[in-house]
């Protein structure tokens, strides 16, 4: 039975939640506000949250100086491509690990996760050389492969967790009804795990969209996504803060909107299996 909550307690909880949310969102809000300021207002000391001279000039200049649609399209192709390819590889892998585990399955899962702990820079030169020899530098297919491999441990782990929640008996029943392996995975397992697959997809699209190490190292002009677009407006001395903020806002806007509309799936996916 749910515990009764007093209005006062509810109000306090709501206030606390909003405060935490505001603290977390504040840097993004600051960036969005800065994108509408002039450069001098953007670096004014002491910093000003609001300014008297709002402007759209930064957006106009960023749009004029860069081929935003090309960067945007590359981001879409790379994030969706790597995630879909990753799911195609990870669903059978997670099925095997969840329903027909071997002696070393746990070790294999841990090993996969441990690759995420390796600093990317450690394999920068070897991977760059491999890409160079295979002619994959500055190609979308190369980046799709790289991002897919990078996120594969997370995809496999997430799917493994969801699949473990599904009773093996249902799959057995399907098998007894004559379903082969392919049909079992595609027509029985996948529809049942769809919420989990959807949240895995969303999370990995976000991870791939935000990736800013390999996507900058392995591209120059043709396959460069929005991470490279932001980097092109960044200066170490902090010059052009307002334009950098405008470029960053343009880069995160699509994923922010996607995240907003799919937050239910994301929360459900991330907390799935947390309480048994």
């Amino acid at each position: 039975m749910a515990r009764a909550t007093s209005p006062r307690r509810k109000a306090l909880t709501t206030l606390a939640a909003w405060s935490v949310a505001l603290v977390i969102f504040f840097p993004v809000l600051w960036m969005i506000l800065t994108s509408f300021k002039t450069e001098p207002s953007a670096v004014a000391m002491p910093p000003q949250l609001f300014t008297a001279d709002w402007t759209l000039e930064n957006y106009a200049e960023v749009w004029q100086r860069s081929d935003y649609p090309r960067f945007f399209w590359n981001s879409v192709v790379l994030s969706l491509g790597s995630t879909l390819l990753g799911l195609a590889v990870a669903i059978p892998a997670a099925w095997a690990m969840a329903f027909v585990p071997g002696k070393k399955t746990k070790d294999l899962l841990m090993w996969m996760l441990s690759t995420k702990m390796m600093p990317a820079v450690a394999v920068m030169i070897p991977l760059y050389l491999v890409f160079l020899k295979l002619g994959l530098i500055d190609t979308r297919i190369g980046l799709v492969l790289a991002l897919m491999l990078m996120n594969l441990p997370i995809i496999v782990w997430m799917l493994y967790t969801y699949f473990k929640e599904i009773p093996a008996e249902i799959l057995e029943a399907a098998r007894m009804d004559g379903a082969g392996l392919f049909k079992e995975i595609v027509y029985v397992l996948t529809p049942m795990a769809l919420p989990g697959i959807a949240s895995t997809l969303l999370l990995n699209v976000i991870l791939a969209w935000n990736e800013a190490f390999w996507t900058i190292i392995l591209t120059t002009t043709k396959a460069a996504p929005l991470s490279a677009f932001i980097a092109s407006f960044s200066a170490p001395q902090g010059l052009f803060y307002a334009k950098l903020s405008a470029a960053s806002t343009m880069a995160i806007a699509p994923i922010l909107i996607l995240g907003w509309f799919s937050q239910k799936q994301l929360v459900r996916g991330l907390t799935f299996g947390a309480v048994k």
Partner: protein
Amino acid sequence: MKMTQRALLGATVSLALAGAAMAETTITVATVNNGDMVRMQGLMDDFYAKHPDIKVEWVTLEENVLRQNVTTDIATGGGQYDVITIGTYEVPIWGKQGWLESLNDLPADYDVDDLLPAIRGGLTVDGNLYASPFYGESSFLNYRKDLAEKAGITISDAPTWDEIKAAAAAMTDTEAGVYGICLRGKAGWGENMAFLTTMANSYGARWFDENWQPQFDQPEWKAVMTDYVELLTKYGPPGASNNGYNENLTLSLQGKCAMRMDATVSAGALTDPAQSEFADKVGFALAPDAGLGKRANWLWAWSLAVPSSSDAKDAAKTFINWATNKDYLALVASKEGWRNAPPGTRTSLYANPEYAALPFAKMTIDSINAADPTNPTVKPVPYVGVQFVAIPEFAGLATSVGELFSAALAGQKSVDDALAEAQALAVSEMTAAGYIK
């Protein structure tokens, strides 16, 4: 009908031939995001009008990201870039490695003898010019003339450190939010260590002796660090250990720094009434010395170079000739005024009466001429570079040392401890790298 067909066929063949003759060479230019480079991208119509057969694709990146990408590409012979923007730190190292194409064969109208000797010297290895300077800078002192007058002091054009210390004490008015001196405190080989290395040069200190033995245990470094920490602790802004180029520039634009020592390239902003209400009150002076014959000013140039791995070297050199030629300076001046012409590369710019009339022009050229990358210190050294040591290990080592010195400034450790740790670190790194046998 036949006539029409023939005419169409003829026109098609002509177009095809014309297309072949105009075959485009595409070059990829990797560059940093700063005002001068952004301006150049806006002036590309002039380049295309003169060279319609060359298409330029830009890869603009933040300085540290650019350095990482370009180094990876050039070290692996990747050939992704045809023109790269590099600094005076990389040119001697990469030139020696054979990673850069010599620019000795640029056309006569490039006028290599017009390049400022100090800048040209820093970009030349064994007689080969490996990069063409796009803009050059040194460092100097900017100060508020009105505050100096109010305090009853005069800052000479070529001050000593003693003058600076006295002026900082006289002009500090913390209640009014005015700090006597602003210097870089943020850790980094291009931040606090750029300044501290030049200060060390003027105090007779050096990074290494002739046998690559680190020198942080010598009394000259103790004097440098003691004075630096004292100056900023007594007369600097709060949180000075977090302040880099931009933070100090912002404070200066707001009139909060009575004096500041930093890049000459900031003179344009400081004297621009649109950016600072103190624009007409700014004075300039050379970086100080300690009477030992070396001033505390650096030398840096962002330059354009062609990697040996480029497969469009001729087109790349054509672009570099356009972007760093005297004509380009005139082009910028014609569009945006002489104030915005890239400074610090050519003698002819400073001979131009219109440019020479700008308030910062003379001090900039005098500062650049006062720096000598091949002979940067009072005592002899085995390296090239004024505010850096042109060896591959320097960037990492200097950033680590910079963190120690920044901690000393923040009061987290004593000057003695910071110097002792810097010495131990440098000995260890230089031994591991094989410089110390």
